[in-house]
């Protein structure tokens, strides 16, 4: 290779590539052709970015499906204002998520962002969103600190905070007479936050967490961990999700532990997206979440029916979150007559939204960008041959701070492997 040739060709390619970057056409998924409403305002540009390819593709796609389903239902119009959607793929990578957020804000001039999918993507875009003052709704990213110690006025959750359902399960487990529990959970932020929330509420009620077993995120074999579980516990709490949850429950059953200990599940362990891959080993498991596809309200059933017609499967919490995100945007536009141009006006309009007829039940926002919503204690049952998350108890209007005072809560460190400390572990 002659060096001059090499340099020459590189520069030529950069020259060609440079201008073509500008020309990349945005992907517009809005339904066109319907008559424009009377409003003279330009359409509200929605920029969706999430993992649509790669390992987490199904998570991002579910969210987008829910959002699309809702927007189709209102014909991409709310409060007399048209809504257009630009879709971007982050492939589950924090760097790409940041690049896509910048693209949506700087190139497409999106009024409102919706996304991303993973917690680390969420933390990666957080500073940029804050700096660019770009309103962003987080439908599924649940990392605690996004709306707690690292909150920004520009990020509002429409989904959940990791420890939010966990607090509820901690209290409920105590009320069921459980006093000593062992926990087996994911060894990374998502697992820590779930476990931390459970432990705090459970111990404040009077229970004792006597053991915490952390499993690496990549573990697919739980056999080495099972013999460590203490014999004298009233229940075992598990925080795993996706494929890990499926394997965990299979092995739990194979080891004969299912009949020995009552099992409680955190971290969306039996979410509808993965429940279809589970078998009888899951039956009887108690879990907690702000959503169940068999929630017996007219709104929930109407949404589930529509979703099944469109996408065949029962909607999990991510799909529901996408749908609710659409509802929140629509309601914000309706309440203001389609007026908010963007930026602060839009954020204020969204924060003021209260929805009583979301599929998951009533929701509103706290001043920190978190969402106040019902938490449901669910039990896995087999009904007409299919597994479902039967709702057996409802804890209404749960905030991300549970029953604690927000300022006291925020002065403590974020839940981690070492916080709250396991004072009852020997």
């Amino acid at each position: 290779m002659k060096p001059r040739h090499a340099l020459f060709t590189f520069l030529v390619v950069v020259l060609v590539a440079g201008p073509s970057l500008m020309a990349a056409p945005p992907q517009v998924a809005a339904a066109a052709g319907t008559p424009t409403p009377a409003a003279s305002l330009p359409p509200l540009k929605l920029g969706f970015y999430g993992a649509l390819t790669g390992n987490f593709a199904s998570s991002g796609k579910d969210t987008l499906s829910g959002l699309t389903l809702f927007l189709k239902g209102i014909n991409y119009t709310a409060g007399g204002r048209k809504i257009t959607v630009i879709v971007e793929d982050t492939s589950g990578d924090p760097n790409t998520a940041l690049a896509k957020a910048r693209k949506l804000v700087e190139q497409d001039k999106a009024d409102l962002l919706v996304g991303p999918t993973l917690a680390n993507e969420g933390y990666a875009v957080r500073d940029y969103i804050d700096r660019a003052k770009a309103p962003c709704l987080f439908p599924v990213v649940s990392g605690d600190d996004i709306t707690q110690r690292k909150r920004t006025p520009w990020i509002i959750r429409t989904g959940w905070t990791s420890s939010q359902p966990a607090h509820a399960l901690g209290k409920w487990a105590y009320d069921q007479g459980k006093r000593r529990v062992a926990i087996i959970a994911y060894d990374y932020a998502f697992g820590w936050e779930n476990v931390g929330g459970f432990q705090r509420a459970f111990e404040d009620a009077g229970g004792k967490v006597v053991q915490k077993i952390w499993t690496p995120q990549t573990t697919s074999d739980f056999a080495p961990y099972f013999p460590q579980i203490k014999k004298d516990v009233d229940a075992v709490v598990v925080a795993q999700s996706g494929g890990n949850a499926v394997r965990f429950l299979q092995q739990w059953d194979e080891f004969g532990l299912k009949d020995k200990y009552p099992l409680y599940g955190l971290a969306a362990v039996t979410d509808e997206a993965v429940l279809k891959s589970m078998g009888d080993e899951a039956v009887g498991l108690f879990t907690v979440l702000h959503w169940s596809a068999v929630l017996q309200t007219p709104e929930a059933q109407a949404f589930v029916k529509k979703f099944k017609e469109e996408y065949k499967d029962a909607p999990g919490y991510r799909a529901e979150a996408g749908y609710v995100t659409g509802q929140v945007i629509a309601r914000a536009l309706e309440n203001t007559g389609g007026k908010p141009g963007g930026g602060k006006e839009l954020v204020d309009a969204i924060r003021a939204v209260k929805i009583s007829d979301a599929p998951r039940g009533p929701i509103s926002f706290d001043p920190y960008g978190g969402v106040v919503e019902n938490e449901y204690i669910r039990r896995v049952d087999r009904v007409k041959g299919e597994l479902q998350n039967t709702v057996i108890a409802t804890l209404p209007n749960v905030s991300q701070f549970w029953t604690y005072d927000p300022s006291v809560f925020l002065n403590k460190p974020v839940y981690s492997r070492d916080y709250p400390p396991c004072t009852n572990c020997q």
Partner: protein
Amino acid sequence: MAWRRAQVLTVIVSILALGVLPIFLPSYPVFVLTSVLIFAIFAMSLDVLIGYLGYTSFGHAAFFGVGAYAAVISALRLGQSFWGSGLLALAVVLLVAMIFGAIALRTSGLPFIMISLALGQALWGLAYRWSTVTGGDNGLSIPMRPELPLIGRLESSLAYYYFVFVVFAIAVAALSLLVRSPFGLSWRGIREREIRMQVLGYHTWLHKYLAYLTSAFFGGLAGILNANLTGFVSPEALAISNSATAILMVILGGPGTLIGPCLGAAVIVVMRQIMSSVTQRWMMVLGVVYIATVMFLPGGLMGMMSRLMVRINSGAPQRSDRSQGKNVERTPATHIQSGGKS
């Protein structure tokens, strides 16, 4: 020769354009171009190992990630400035490379691939689990931009682009000089036949070790630049997918050419950030491009380009005679094909 003159002219014009063009671009394309240049440095640094030394590393993200983490942590926890954190991070990268090199270079071939992979994964696991220092899966952010003595705070994307552009130009110049120096030539000697180099009296281990450190240095530099571009670092920076991306860039562009990997970086970054806006099937497009490259263009994009150049340069008539491409330098494609996988 008229052709040569035209070529030199084109190079000068291109450099000027690369320097001037971004002024007229909106901020997002400038951001993407900055990413391209940073990943070009990263890919070039890996090319030193793969293309010149013939050692395929599956853990090159280790240096990218260590550079990024060290820069962010020293800025965040020690309150270092841009320069302070950058220099400190480079020192940390070199330290890690000194240890890793001493371990990994005891092997070659397949064992080297496995050891580089294992060392890289160890760091990834550390970043994931040592959350008090690294922030775990959530990563760490620096809410600040580099500060330069003359220009001031590099708040705008454009200013940072020019900073990266200058670093990139220095990196290209330094690495080009290095691989053409007698010292750099010894790497190629080792790649071709290490035992012969030993017989000739070269202390081949030391040469390999220094090549490894060079590679790590520039890999770490790319990591530091990227951390300052995004203001963020997470275990993804150390993940095997990052190492694999760098290998793809090198193979796609053409190993052992330095500029080839830059081209590969440009193609992959543009695919990931621009093509993915056009179609969700961008990974498929990338896969097809990659397979086609391995099957039909063993020298990568640069191999193809140089064959084209030779053809244009020598005039069209002798097309059939030239098809052997005797002017094309041998590239170590065989190393890659035996060692790597997509």
